[in-house]
């Protein structure tokens, strides 16, 4: 059973703080993704990674960076949190072989005050 685990369910940070969101998957998936979900906008892709140390920008990468030092772990970094980054953040992973779908973590609701 695929498991994608995000380090926090809820997070409150102050404007200007550096924020780390962590995601771990246990299925040896090559691909990992970070989305943010906002009402009426669906899921928007921030960054994705198709291999260790490899990353690609998604549709809304500004203000974010990522790190993938190990295959199972994909971190999203907000260098200097701002109130417009208050959102639900969802991590997902998928394989290049066989299974076609993306498996999601439970989400982190980040509030920047």
């Amino acid at each position, binding site marked *: 059973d695929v498991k994608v685990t995000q380090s926090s369910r809820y997070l409150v940070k102050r404007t200007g703080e550096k924020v780390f969101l962590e995601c771990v998957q246990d299925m040896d998936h090559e691909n990992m993704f970070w989305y943010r979900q906002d009402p009426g906008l669906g899921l928007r892709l921030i960054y994705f990674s198709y291999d260790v140390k490899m990353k690609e920008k998604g549709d809304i990468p500004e203000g974010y960076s990522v790190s993938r030092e190990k295959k199972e772990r994909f971190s999203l970094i907000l260098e200097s949190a701002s109130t417009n980054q208050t959102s639900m953040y969802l991590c997902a992973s998928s394989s290049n072989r066989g299974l076609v779908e*993306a498996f999601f973590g439970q989400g982190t609701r980040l509030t920047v005050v």
Partner: protein
Amino acid sequence: GQQVMQIPQYQHVQEGEDFTTYCNSSTTLSNIQWYKQRPGGHPVFLIQLVKSGEVKKQKRLTFQFGEAKKNSSLHITATQTTDVGTYFCAGRKTTSGTYKYIFGTGTRLKVLA
């Protein structure tokens, strides 16, 4: 970038009524997936459609992929309270030999008992 719109954004139905959500892409999709997100939960994969004009059924759910592979629909017959949630379509796009998922804006379904 690639855009995937869904209509309607919200739908309230009486239990037992039918429900349809439509997904439209600005570009041709190689395939389309559908996900369901229960309130407070994360998106969970339902199905993938690949062929032009394809129709697939899962019990009371019928999924269609348009002939031009730019639109798709999900129809639920005789809705039940367990159908409550947000339904997302997602186009899977190949980039550099790997995959990313472009999600639609979602349709939130409320079923009134």
